[in-house]
């Protein structure tokens, strides 16, 4: 549905996005990951059509976003990292204004629907500037959803929220995922990506360094999987014993008897038996998205 083809964006001499290509299928939820300043926001803005690419093309169902801005923008909902709010308006008037701009026919109906959906009914009459950050984020989301777009692009929807507000927004996101929309979600909360997305695209220093279904990426990491062992009596011998286990590539001790191991295959049983004499307390070793992310984004440096 969305096709990003060899997109490059230069700001003067700085290369923000370097020859990025990826595709998002209809109804797919894609996690867009990368360190701060990697070019995530720039890429997302290019997809929304609010920023022009220096080279390359983004198309929505085969229609070039830059050549058909009106058509494509009407089908995309975008929540930037800082929600694009007019602080002097009431929530309801703001959402109505957004609905009008986005070409919604039944402005009143669409506004009330989305206001209820994102949980703003109670504050709908209040001035946007007087709302808490969590509510402001919801107003931003209402703006992105008011025209019932097929594609939703969310840039750091949790930024600046406290844990309770984060849970609330997360619940809203779950609801949106279940509505069969095509979603590109950028966030540093990898646990949420794992829970919500089927696919990830990882960008680092403007380049796409990894993409694909989460399970595949995890499988690709099998030759460097992480195992964390905690023992009661940490000592030099424990370190030596763990290092001696076949297929353990690296051992990195942490305070509190924690050892971070990098292993080349499934060897948890061997690691466990090596650790038992030193009082094994805990052992964990599932492949995690975090490992993939760190591996791919650090490799480049």
């Amino acid at each position, binding site marked *: 549905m969305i096709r990003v083809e060899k997109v490059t964006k230069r700001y003067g001499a700085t290369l923000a996005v370097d020859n990025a290509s990826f595709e998002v299928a209809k109804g797919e939820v894609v996690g867009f990951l990368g360190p701060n300043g990697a070019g995530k926001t720039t890429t997302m803005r290019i997809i929304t059509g609010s920023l022009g690419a220096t080279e390359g093309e983004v198309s929505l169902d085969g229609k070039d976003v830059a050549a058909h801005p009106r058509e494509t923008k009407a089908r995309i909902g*975008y929540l930037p990292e800082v929600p694009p*709010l*007019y602080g*002097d308006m009431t929530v309801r008037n703001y959402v109505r204004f957004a609905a009008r*701009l*986005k070409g919604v026919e039944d402005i009143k109906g669409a506004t009330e629907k989305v206001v209820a959906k994102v949980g703003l009914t109670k504050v709908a009459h209040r001035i946007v500037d007087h709302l808490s950050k969590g509510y402001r984020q919801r107003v931003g989301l209402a703006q992105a959803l008011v025209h019932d777009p097929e594609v939703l692009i969310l840039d750091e929807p949790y930024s600046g929220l406290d844990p309770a507000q984060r849970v609330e927004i997360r619940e809203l996101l779950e609801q949106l995922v279940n509505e069969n929309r095509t979603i590109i979600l950028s966030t540093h909360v990898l646990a949420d990506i794992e829970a919500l997305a089927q696919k990830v695209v990882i960008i680092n220093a403007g380049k796409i360094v990894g993409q694909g279904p989460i399970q595949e990426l995890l499988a690709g990491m099998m030759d460097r999987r992480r195992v964390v062992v905690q023992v009661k009596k940490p000592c030099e011998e424990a370190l030596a014993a763990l290092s001696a286990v076949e297929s353990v590539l690296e051992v990195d001790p942490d305070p509190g008897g924690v050892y971070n191991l990098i292993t080349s295959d499934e060897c948890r049983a061997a690691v466990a038996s090596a650790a038992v004499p030193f009082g094994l307390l805990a052992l964990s070793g599932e492949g995690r998205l975090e490992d993939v992310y760190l591996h791919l984004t650090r490799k480049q440096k």
Partner: protein
Amino acid sequence: MRNILAIAQREVRAYFATPVGWICMFGFLALSGLFFALFTMLYAEEAANQTFNPYMGNQLNMDEYLVAPFWGNTYIILLFICPGLTMRLFAEDVKSRSMELLLTSPVSTMEIVLGKYLGAMGYITVILACTLHYPAIWFWLGDPDPGVMASSYLAVFLLAGSYCAVGMMFSAFTSNQIVSVVLSFGTLLVLWILGWGSELAGGTLSEILEFASLVNRMESLTKGLVHSKDLIYYFSFIGFFLWVTYQRVEAYRWR
């Protein structure tokens, strides 16, 4: 058109939701009210004096000695309030990032520019509508020319439109409202002063300055003479600054 109106309506509402709108309105009405009262009283006094001098009495013309100078002074008030009105049009949107709503909506750059401009002009229309009782009082007291009155309103509207076009352009070039207001006020002041220069300078220079002066061109309009060349001048002036603003906003997509 729907988008232009939506943006314009939002801007007009924003003026009345923030202190800037009310302060400018209060300033404009208080000062123009003061000028109105003073000029009307002075004119009445002069008229009373001249009733004893029938020859001079014929010389005293309400349009020339009351209406024209009154509007001449409102031009100065506009010089101060228009930069204040337009400073936020783009600067605030860029700073608060609400520009992103406009840029990601199915709205063209031209619609954004025209919407914002119409918003400012809508506000100007509201404050000018609040001055309609001045001519009403003049018609009640005396016998001014309705044509002159209409063309005076047209003149003040065109001048405000020109000022707002300049102010909006500067607002699009900075995200700092103070910078925007200073640059637009400075530019308008220079354009104002050019008019004085045209009287001092001689020859071709005088003609050039006369051409560049926004205010000198007002004279014939305030006398009730609506020349198409003057209208074309103001419309081209406004059009030029709207075009520059358009180019600038279009460039937002490239930075």
